[in-house]
């Protein structure tokens, strides 16, 4: 039997906690529930979970402060639970160090996929020399991206952007994050750069750039490279 992954759920709604624990336990996760932010932080500290599911609207502390507190001493993947139409909150949480988000009401299979992706990524070692996703392959050492084994001609900026996506497959990357990582902190607001470059990259990597399957837009939040299976 594989080692059981532990998930801490911090949500004030007992019904949501229950439904999450039932499904996660059925998937062989060990679940620890917390209804308050404070209890949640304690649970994360004591149990060293592989993942945290955090509701943004908590009664005692808001989800943001719980997240920042956890981030001061832990890099455990955190998935934010949020209501729809609150992109601002989602972006804020992602910039504070959350790894992903899912909006209520959610689809269980989607949630499970997100949980798996985030746990897997966290356990990946950075030492890998290359990553394959669908038709695409990136070689970190040679700094080359291949499509169907053919080398793509990329500018430096395009390569850096793709590097970010390959290192964070299945994870949403906010506009802010990408701009800071690729262009530097002074360009954090220049989201039009990003639009232009994402467009160029899509032309190079996608079969149909108008219906991208590798780099998709999370509207109002950022971009995400999906894991594509051939």
């Amino acid at each position, binding site marked *: 039997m594989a080692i059981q992954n532990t998930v801490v759920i911090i949500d*004030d*709604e*007992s*019904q*949501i906690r*229950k*439904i*999450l624990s*039932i*499904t996660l*336990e*059925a*998937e062989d996760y060990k679940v620890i529930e917390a*209804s308050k932010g404070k209890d949640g932080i304690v649970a994360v500290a004591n149990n060293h979970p592989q993942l945290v599911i955090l509701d943004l*609207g908590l*009664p005692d502390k808001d989800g943001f402060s719980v997240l920042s507190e956890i981030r001061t001493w832990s890099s455990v993947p955190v998935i934010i639970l949020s*209501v729809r139409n609150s992109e601002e909150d989602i972006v804020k949480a992602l910039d504070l160090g959350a790894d992903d988000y899912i909006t*209520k*009401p*959610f*689809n*269980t*299979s*989607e*949630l*499970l996929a997100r949980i798996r992706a985030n746990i897997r990524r966290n356990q990946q070692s950075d030492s890998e020399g290359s990553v394959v996703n669908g038709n695409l392959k990136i070689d970190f050492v040679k700094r080359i991206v291949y499509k169907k084994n053919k080398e793509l001609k990329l500018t430096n900026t395009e390569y850096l952007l793709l590097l970010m996506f390959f290192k964070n497959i299945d994870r949403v990357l906010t506009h802010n994050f990408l701009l800071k990582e690729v262009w530097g902190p002074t360009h954090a607001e220049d989201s039009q750069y990003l639009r232009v470059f994402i467009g160029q990259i899509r032309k190079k990597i996608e079969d149909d750039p108008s219906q991208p399957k590798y780099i998709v837009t999370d509207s109002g939040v950022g971009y995400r490279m999906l894991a594509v299976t051939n």
Partner: protein
Amino acid sequence: METGKNNFVNNKTSVANSVNGSKRKKNFGSAVKTVWQTPVTKYFLSALVITVTGIILYYLQLHIGYQSVSLVFLFIVSLLPLFNFKPGQIFLAAVMSAFIWNYYFIPPHFTLRIGKVEDALMFGLYFVIASVSGLLISRIRTQQIQINQKEKKTSALYDLTRELSSSKSLDDVTGCSIRHLKETFHTEVAVIYAENDKKLQTLPHPSSTFKIDEAEWNIAQFVHLNSGKAGRFTDTIQFITPATYYPLLSKEGKLGVLGLIFPEDAVLNNDTQSLLNTFIAQITIAIEREYLKELAKRNLVIQESEKLYKTLFDSVSHELKTPITTILGAVTSLRDEKIIGNKSVLTRLLFETNVAAERLKRLVENLLDITRLESGNLTLKKDWHSVNDLFNLLINKIRKEGYDQNIIVSVNEDAGILFFDYPLIEQALLNIIHNSLEYTPPGSSIEINAKRTTEGLAIIISDNGNGFPEEALKNLFKKFYRVPGTKAGGTGLGLSIAKGFVEAHGGTISVRNRKPNGAEFIILLPFN
């Protein structure tokens, strides 16, 4: 030149008199006055006065000497301005008296020739002094009248502004404006406020003193659209309507239209017109002020209702989303083969789905109930029901819901029957019992007691939980109120619905904390 000026002054005085003087005298004797005041009559009158004086003096000259006669004439001429004689008329009197004196009094009599040098000198001096003093006095008199008029205008304006500034509402401002316009200009007044920049309201303000029919309204609307006056005394539509319409224009936009019907004989000269303009300007400022005030008030109300709406929206949407999330989560997890294969997981999912669906159902019922209460057309379908049955069925329902608390019911055997709307009272009691079940710790006990008293059926629902914070007790039945710091879930509607339903039966509901701990709700349903 001189005459032209005279006419102007004359006009001024006549209108101002008929307007201002009437504040005290009303229109008393105005017809007579107008005949007296016409310039031609006044010329005759001044000639007549001089002639009569001449005749009297002619008989007196033996006693007083012909030289004193000139002094008496001078006296009469200088008196004329005091009776509102104008320079031309005074000049006529001076000339006439000079020649009468010369012809009839200065020797040689009945000639215009003057015998002695000193008489000639006196005649010349008399003529100059009579004319000059008459004219000077007349000018002083005119100025005095002007000053009086100005004072009256100033005080009318002062009265208006003072009263306008102390007016507290748009109605006050309108009423006060109409009264002052009526008093000062003798007009009938109507005020029609604007619906928007393009259209006036259909009806004039109720304090208006003349009726606006469709034709008049159309003219007012025309004035509103064009932002220029129209009607009598203007260049636009002056013959169709007896009224004059002025647009009320402020910096913020078009406020409405002011309609005035002047008396038929009124003359609207520059002075009156400018006073009227000042009046309108003052009135516009006051109306604008009240408009802005009411706008601010309305904005406040809108803000308040938006706040309430947001609270309602947030709580209702949260309450809706949570069970929907649960149900969707449970249903979508059924795609997972691991879950389908695990029977105990399936049972638990099914149970949670059921709880969520119940919660949704309760929320929808609560929303419908509060809407019924709010709409005010809650009609009771009363009938005779057994009190024992009510509680038995109620408790069965609650026990099925799987709460952890002990529920102890004691209903007196002789509780008998009661005339009430069964679903409403059941809902009221359910809401209170659910409230206790939701907010007391597992393992607490809820006691439900019902007994007949002299006034009606007394129901006491008590628990041994934590009770309520003191300040929450008085707000507990308010709509959307939730005790601060309570757990998630709930809209704050249940208890206010319970209160509404109980009160619809003429009953009362109250809550208090128990000693040492817990809370109790006391419901009293009267027998009829």
